[in-house]
């Protein structure tokens, strides 16, 4: 049985850990995790290729498999948006939420490929997404409610102001840590299972544990991407809902 660090060293096929200080490289904007960034770029390219391939030569009457897949995903997100947000306000949000879902889904699944890593297994990515959503929600709240947006911090009584502020701030933090925890834990367990069994035990059937865990991780990847998107929709719908 090997330690987690050893397994990570073994899995460092692309040599990211040797860049900078354990993969953290100083740049003009500050220190960055190179592996996370490179994986993100790969995922961006994959997502772009996937969607572009699906939307070239689209057919109305006889959609191909790829087209149907993207369409269904899009319709699923759009359905969620229109169910929760007023049609006129939600229409502009569909593309953002579709991108969010697609990006998170690809990110979650990408880490299941050996030597690859989910960008969402890095708290920087998930917290970045969550902060972006948080800012978006504040902006949307201000846009649709004006200054009366701040009134909800004082409700039901002004005395609760600290609590409401904590409540508001807890949203991006929970959003970030939920997906990060799930995906990072999934990757850690993949590495642990790899280190747990010797080669003989793996060949004798120890690989089954990894297989089962990978299958479950696919499920978790979908679920977490969905939850993140769904919660974003819920937060936005709270700000766009009209109180009578």
């Amino acid at each position: 049985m090997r330690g987690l660090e050893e397994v990570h060293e073994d899995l460092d096929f692309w040599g990211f850990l040797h860049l900078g200080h354990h993969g953290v490289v100083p740049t003009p904007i500050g220190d960055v995790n190179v592996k996370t960034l490179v994986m993100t770029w790969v995922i961006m390219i994959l997502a772009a290729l996937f969607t572009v391939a699906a939307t070239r030569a689209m057919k109305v009457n006889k959609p191909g498999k790829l087209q149907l897949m993207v369409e269904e995903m899009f319709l699923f997100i759009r359905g969620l948006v229109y169910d929760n947000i007023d049609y006129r306000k939600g229409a502009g949000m569909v593309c953002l939420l579709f991108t969010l879902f697609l990006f998170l889904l690809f990110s979650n699944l990408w880490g299941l490929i050996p030597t690859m890593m989910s960008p969402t297994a890095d708290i920087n990515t998930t917290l970045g997404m969550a902060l972006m959503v948080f800012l978006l929600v504040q902006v949307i709240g201000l846009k649709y409610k004006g200054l009366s947006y701040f009134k909800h911090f004082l409700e039901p009584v002004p005395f609760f102001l600290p609590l409401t502020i904590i409540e508001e701030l807890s949203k991006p933090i929970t959003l970030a840590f939920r997906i990060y925890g799930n995906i990072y834990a999934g990757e850690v367990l993949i590495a642990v299972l790899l280190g747990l069994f010797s080669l003989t035990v793996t060949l004798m059937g120890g690989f089954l544990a990894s297989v089962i865990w990978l299958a479950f991780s696919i499920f978790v990847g979908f679920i977490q991407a969905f939850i993140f998107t769904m919660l974003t929709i819920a937060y936005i719908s709270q700000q766009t809902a009209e109180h009578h």
Partner: protein
Amino acid sequence: MEAVISALGLNATLVAQIFNFIVLLIFLRVVVYKPIVNVLEQRQKAIADNVTAAENERKEAEALRQSYLAEMQKSKEEAQAIIQQATKAGEAQAQQILEAAKAESARIKDSALAEIEREKEKAVAELREQVVTLSILVANKVVSKKITDDVQHDMVREFIKEAGDLPC
């Protein structure tokens, strides 16, 4: 705060990831979003058109069916009328034929009766003539020369008259 940031391993990657996401968002918005929305709209429109077309066709079919039914009803009535007419005509013809036959038979009967009557009269006349002749002969033999021809003739005539009144 510093401790939290370093413990979590937060660094500029966070900003870069937001930037990356926005790049992806812009790309998808420009390149992918429009075709998807377009094709979905087109499909929706196509479905709506199909539904409308199907509805129209259904209405047309219903109208056609009604007209066919009406036509069928009309044909039925016409056929009924023709049959009735034919029946009536047949009956009339049969009556006519019957009447003609009756008239013919009456005519034949009448003519037969007339013939019989004529024959009878002819026979009676012949009989009279013969009776006259016979009577003369008989009278001649009986009275021989005792009465003149005149007296004899008168007597015969009387006899004939009596004989003629007899039913024969």
